[in-house]
């Protein structure tokens, strides 16, 4: 704590006394501080000697409530009763007036600093309030937009559930048909081979061999077309999946904005 801070705190604890008395106390301590500085004490040591400003103020304030102090005031000599051979010189008067003006300047500066501090605090509070308000407004449209999207999705699901169900059913049927072709070809091929072997055993060698060969060809066709059919089915399901993803992206894009 610096001496000026100590003095300011003392002053703030003496607001209940008159301006004249407060000024006298501050002059007293200013003089005491200067004397100790002349004697070689550091600012910190002097403040330690002075003690806490609150305690110093309380000693002064308590002294005002002393009844004996109040009673003796009536007999207090006036300043003019001091030896008349001393007159305040012009220089002393000027110093006293400069001290008064300095105190007034310091009070004015303190008032100005206090006003600036209050204005700064108000400005910070206003900025904070505006920031919170803008954040709140930014969240609201997104929240309302999200709820709108969900509602639209539900309505679309209700309207489109029949066509979508039909589409999925068609795709399942197409998948079954496409898979059935090569499987059917393989099964037919096996059946034809078996019939061909039976014909061979019934002494119809040519017919039996012809049918066995045809059966093998059918099996071969089935095996050849199986990967192709698999690719076709995967394409169809991928197309359906892409369709649903595109529909989802329509709703999610608006929510992200």
């Amino acid at each position, binding site marked *: 704590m610096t001496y000026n801070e100590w003095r300011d705190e003392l002053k703030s604890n003496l607001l209940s006394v008159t301006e004249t008395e407060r000024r006298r106390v501050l002059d*007293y301590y200013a003089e005491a501080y200067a004397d100790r500085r002349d004697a070689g004490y550091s600012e910190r040591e002097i403040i330690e000697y002075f003690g806490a400003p609150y*305690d110093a103020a309380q000693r002064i304030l308590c002294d005002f409530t002393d009844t004996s102090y109040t009673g003796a005031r009536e007999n207090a000599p006036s300043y003019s009763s001091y030896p008349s051979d001393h007159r305040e010189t012009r220089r002393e008067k000027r*110093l006293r007036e400069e001290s008064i003006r300095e105190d007034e300047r310091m009070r004015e500066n303190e008032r100005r600093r206090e006003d600036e501090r209050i204005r700064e605090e108000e400005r910070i509070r206003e900025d904070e309030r505006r920031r919170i308000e803008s954040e709140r407004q930014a969240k609201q449209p997104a929240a309302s937009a999200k709820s709108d999207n969900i509602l639209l999705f539900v309505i679309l699901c209700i309207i489109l559930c029949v066509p979508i169900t039909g589409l999925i059913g068609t795709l399942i049927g197409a998948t079954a048909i496409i898979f059935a072709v090569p499987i059917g070809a393989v099964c037919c091929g096996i059946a034809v081979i078996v019939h061909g072997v039976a014909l061979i055993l019934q002494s119809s060698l040519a017919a039996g061999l012809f049918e066995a060969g045809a059966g093998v060809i059918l099996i071969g066709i089935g095996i050849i077309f199986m990967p192709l059919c698999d690719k076709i089915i995967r394409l169809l399901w991928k197309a359906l999946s892409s369709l649903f993803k595109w529909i989802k992206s329509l709703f999610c894009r608006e929510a992200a904005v």
Partner: protein
Amino acid sequence: MDVQLKKGVLDVCVLYALTGGESYGYKIISDLHGIIDISESTLYPILKRLEAGGYLVTRTAEHNGRLRRYYRITALGQRKFVDGRNDMLEINTIYRKIFGGKV
């Protein structure tokens, strides 16, 4: 020490510091160092009270480009100092009677 007793003792000590002539705050504290240690915060209300009681008077004079307040004991203050000294002698006598010189 009892507050009122200490107040009376401090008043006597400050008046004693002024019996040698005009003095000022820091000098009073320095002169009393070794007799009783007081700080500026303790001294101010004592000086104020003594001045209000008419036991001392003050004046302000220039010193090294600043103002300094000087204190001077009055006749009333001299009588108060003498009364205070007699009170202390009386206390000392009572103390000796109670404790018989033992601590």
